[in-house]
């Protein structure tokens, strides 16, 4: 029966060690021999402290003594305590982790069960690395998406919102005014630079681009300073558009159009060139008087712009019903 019992312990897939009262090894199963390359005959009667130096420290040897004294089992986790027995099945450099469960069998015997978790820890480590990698990739994708979103919604030359962005924003603003039964009105300003083609032909597109950038900067700065409830965008080429909300009638739109024209009429100082002067025409449609949809408001503002263009340019005009 005893032989059969020890044979059974040899077949177990965990390490089994029995110690006597003086911490000497009285049983060492095959699993332990396989992992440590120390056979049972080599370790029998040798103290555990010699085989596993960790037990030589007072911290661990007192744990063994206290289990003998109190009969209370102890669990030592590999995550906290690390290596107790060298594992020669693994390549050097592995961080060996073993869980130990130590129990008193009787007054003279202590049982130590050793569970090697190195492989498991390694997998957890690799999995953590993989998750970190995925998280990093995810962050990069998010950043790229943000950039793509900006590109899709922004004019790359002037950094102003583009046509698509303006249409979306105006749609939302109209819905907001309609849904809240707001008394506020909304002016849609269509701006066309009168002389940009001439400048492009005379000085080249690079100078034309610099004027567009400077113009965008001047107009958006002045709008921001006078009214936060406005939104400006570059539609295409030399066409810009903005909408502005007013709670004090269309007088506000008059003054805004004048401010924009004043800003445009200031000379543009492009390096190595004499100060350049350009002019602009502005057509304005008003929600809800002229139209109530995005498309119609832009169409009416465009018609008003046409009126300015045909009557001398460098001015602004409200849409007039035929």
């Amino acid at each position, binding site marked *: 029966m005893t032989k059969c019992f020890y044979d059974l312990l040899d077949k177990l897939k965990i390490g089994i060690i029995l110690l006597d009262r003086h911490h000497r090894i009285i049983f060492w199963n095959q699993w332990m021999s396989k992992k440590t390359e120390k056979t049972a005959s080599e370790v029998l009667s040798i103290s555990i402290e010699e085989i596993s130096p960790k037990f030589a420290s007072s911290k661990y040897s007192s744990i063994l003594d206290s289990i003998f004294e*109190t009969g209370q089992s102890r669990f030592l986790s590999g*995550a*906290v305590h690390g290596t107790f027995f060298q594992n020669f099945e693994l390549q050097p450099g592995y961080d060996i982790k073993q869980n130990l469960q130590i129990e008193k069998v009787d007054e003279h015997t202590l049982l130590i069960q050793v569970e090697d978790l190195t492989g498991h820890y390694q997998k957890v480590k690799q999995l953590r690395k993989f998750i970190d990698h995925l998280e990093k990739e995810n962050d990069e994708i998010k950043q790229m998406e943000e950039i793509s979103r900006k590109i899709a919604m922004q004019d790359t030359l002037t950094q102003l919102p583009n046509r698509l962005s303006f249409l979306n924003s105006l749609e939302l603003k109209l819905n907001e005014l309609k849904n809240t039964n707001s008394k506020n009105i909304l002016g849609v300003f269509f701006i066309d630079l009168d002389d940009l083609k001439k400048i492009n032909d005379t000085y080249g597109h690079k100078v034309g681009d610099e004027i567009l950038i400077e113009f965008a900067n001047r107009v958006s700065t002045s709008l921001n300073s006078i009214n936060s409830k406005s939104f400006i965008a570059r539609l295409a080429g030399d066409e810009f558009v903005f909408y502005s909300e007013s709670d004090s009638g269309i007088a506000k739109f008059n003054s805004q159009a004048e401010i924009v024209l004043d800003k445009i009429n200031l000379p543009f100082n492009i390096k190595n060139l004499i100060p350049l002067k350009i002019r602009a025409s502005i057509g304005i449609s008003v929600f809800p008087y002229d139209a109530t949809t995005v498309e119609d408001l832009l169409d009416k503002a465009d018609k008003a712009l046409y009126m300015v263009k045909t009557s001398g340019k460098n001015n602004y005009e409200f849409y007039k019903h035929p």
Partner: protein
Amino acid sequence: MINELQKDLLREYINVFIGQAASMLSEIANQRVILSVPEVEIVNMAEEEVLSHNLFSHGHIVSSSMKFGNEFSGRAMLIFPAKKAKFLVDACMGMESEEVLDEEFHLIDTDFDVLKEISNVILNSVIGEFSNLLDTTVEFSIPDVELLFVSESEQKMYLKNDIYMLMLYTSFQLAEAKIDGVVIVALGMNSLNKLIDKINEILGDI
């Protein structure tokens, strides 16, 4: 169930038991760990008594439990919020804890091993010292640790199989974190009487 005098004496003993657990825990965590027991109460689960404290807040909890037996027998449990358990694990592993959102919080296998050791140390001290106090041998093994999701209304349901509960509301004070937990010792009628008799005996001696 017990009068104030009995309760005071019990609290005094338990403070000593828990103090021993704290010093063992300090050794594992490599930092000073203070375990305090602000309150002790005995609850009869069969009666509709209201617990003086919420055992755990709504959400995930880590529950370690083990049966102990012989002349003094029952079930011992250590319960604390899972998110806070992670602080304890990180401290024991010498890692710095990061504040994480509830939905990002997770415990992995190795964390459970550490929690098993923490529970082992604490429950060993408490139950071991009870057996010393009662001059009896108590047999018990290593606790099982599980992660559970419990709503506040399920608190008593979670404990319903046991009749008398000795509640020890504990708090772990680590360098940077305070972790509230509860040690519950569920006792049968005989074991509870044995404990009360012992307390009366000590009080009589005094």
